[in-house]
């Protein structure tokens, strides 16, 4: 009698398995878990708002550059014109560092990257996932005289950029409220 129990159980499972295999693969199911997340894990972490701290290949010293009167916009060139500030290309680094401080070990690394014709694999510190469906445009914020530090923290005190401000929707919404900026969903989500 117990055998029957086992048999029944097996059948039930077999049915489900067979069917699961038989059911055709959808032609368009993509090879990433979602457009935003490569894996279920990534999705889960995003769901619980866990951001792994970025490990930068080179300890880029923001504070030194800023101390030397460099402006954010010198390297993040397009911030005033376009939606993205842009992680600077190694080309940008070489504009100065082909002459300046060429003997320092870190700069040597940079040079070697540019010689190899490979970008420095900077890790993104800020930014939204696809699934957030956020369309953020830097330029209007710069025009509205929003200080870079307001959203990115005071880089003058950091070497590599850290996630000083958590870019949650609440953060954006509050600022928009205070400054009477449009607060409709469509302002950012489309």
């Amino acid at each position, binding site marked *: *009698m*117990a055998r029957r*129990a086992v048999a029944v159980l097996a059948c*039930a499972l077999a*049915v*489900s398995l067979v069917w699961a295999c038989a*059911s055709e693969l*959808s032609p368009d199911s993509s090879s990433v878990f979602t457009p935003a997340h490569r894996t279920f894990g990534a999705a889960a972490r995003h769901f619980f708002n866990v951001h792994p701290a970025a490990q930068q290949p080179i300890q880029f010293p923001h504070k030194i550059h800023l101390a030397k009167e460099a402006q954010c916009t010198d390297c993040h060139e397009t911030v005033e014109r376009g939606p993205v500030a842009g992680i600077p290309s190694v080309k940008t680094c070489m504009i100065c560092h082909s002459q300046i401080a060429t003997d320092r070990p870190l700069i040597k690394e940079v040079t070697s990257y540019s010689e190899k014709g490979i970008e420095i694999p900077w890790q993104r510190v800020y930014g939204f996932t696809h699934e957030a469906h956020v369309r953020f445009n830097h330029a209007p914020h710069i025009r509205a005289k929003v200080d870079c530090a307001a959203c990115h923290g005071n880089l003058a005190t950091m070497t590599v950029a850290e996630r000083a401000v958590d870019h949650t929707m*609440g953060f954006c*919404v509050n600022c928009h409220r205070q400054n009477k900026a449009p607060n409709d969903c469509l302002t950012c989500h489309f």
Partner: protein
Amino acid sequence: MSEGLPPTMTEDLLRPLLRTSWRFYLLVAFLGSIVAMGLGTWAYQMYRGFGMTGINNPVYWAFYITNFVFWIGISHAGTLISAILRLVNAGWRRPVTRCAEVITAFALMIGAMFPIIHLGRPWLFFWLMPYPNQRMIWPNFRSPLVWDFFAISTYLSGSLLFLFLPMIPDFALIRDRSTGLRRKIYGLLALGWRGTTKQWHRLESAMQIMAIAIIPVAVSVHTIVSFDFSMAPVPMWHSTMFGPYFVAGAIFSGIAGLIIAMATLRKFLHLEAYLHPVHFQNLGKLLLMMSLLWGYFVFAERLTTWYGNDVAEMNVFYVTQRGSFAPLYWTMVVVNFVIPVIVLSLKKTRTIAGCVIASCGVCVGMWLERFLIVVPSLSHKFLPYSWGHYRPRPVELLITVSTFAAMALLYVLFAKFVPIIAIWELKAGEHPSPALSPVAAHEHALGETHA
């Protein structure tokens, strides 16, 4: 009540709790595997994408919503019926009430799963709940789906309470009869019930209040479920009679479910001595009445539609009446109306078997009814260019099947751990007048002798 109770009553009713046969394990294993399969299927559907279902444009709701409405409907068996019976103090209710209330609790739990299963992004279902958040975004209180959320959660908590209250004395009884861990657990559940007169009064009044309170809730729940449809400008959905129509349908299917459950229990737990043919006959009469009521509603709906002759509605009307949905439609009419009315109105067919047959028919029929409300309308909306069709896919079928297994499983487990018939109520019923204190005293004494 005419029938006397056997002296071995308490033992009979506690037997399933104390003794366990291999059959029990076999049954649980079987049902459990099906439920597991259902859950697995759901996980698969979530992982592969909602496209694994047969849902398409424009038929965006189908099997899952049908099941949702169906199970919520079934849930109207218990609480509502037992509440009414309690209020009118129908003596014959005593053995029936608990197995009825249990149905409510479980059917609701299962039914409430479906709105989540049918979500495109189920992991975000909690956005239906109003919870404070930094974004200051709340659910849209204008949406019937949000009303659903509140209605169902209220009804669920209400009926759980309503189920639990009358179990307390029985828990106490088991506590007093058992030892060890079991004694501890039931002790906890019994909430320190000592059976004092005060406690009996409290219990009775609490149940009176609940019984009165739960009825409007029950009615509102299915009305709101019907609003999911009638609030949308969809041909044959946008109707004022959907509220009562759905409530009637719910009670209808509920009673059917109850009859089936009782018959099964009677058979497998050998409760012939407690669930007498008269119970089935009475419920059978109720079922007959509801069947007639349902028939009346369908007639009214169909006639008004046909008479009104609105272009869009007529397309749906005909596609169910003579078109591709006609077979389902006429099956529904037969099993929901023709068979029950014939079987239940004749005294000699209104037997236990007769009632069960009719009830099975009604369960099928009511499921079809919901399906025929959801799909034909969606597939024949206003612009013929975008008409569609629908065929279920394996995931939907498997999940649907597994919910029936889930219902059975939960019921089996419940019957295993709680006396499915309220022992103290039966005893109370023994007395010519259900006056409280003597019963209480008696009950109390009984409690003590075994303590």
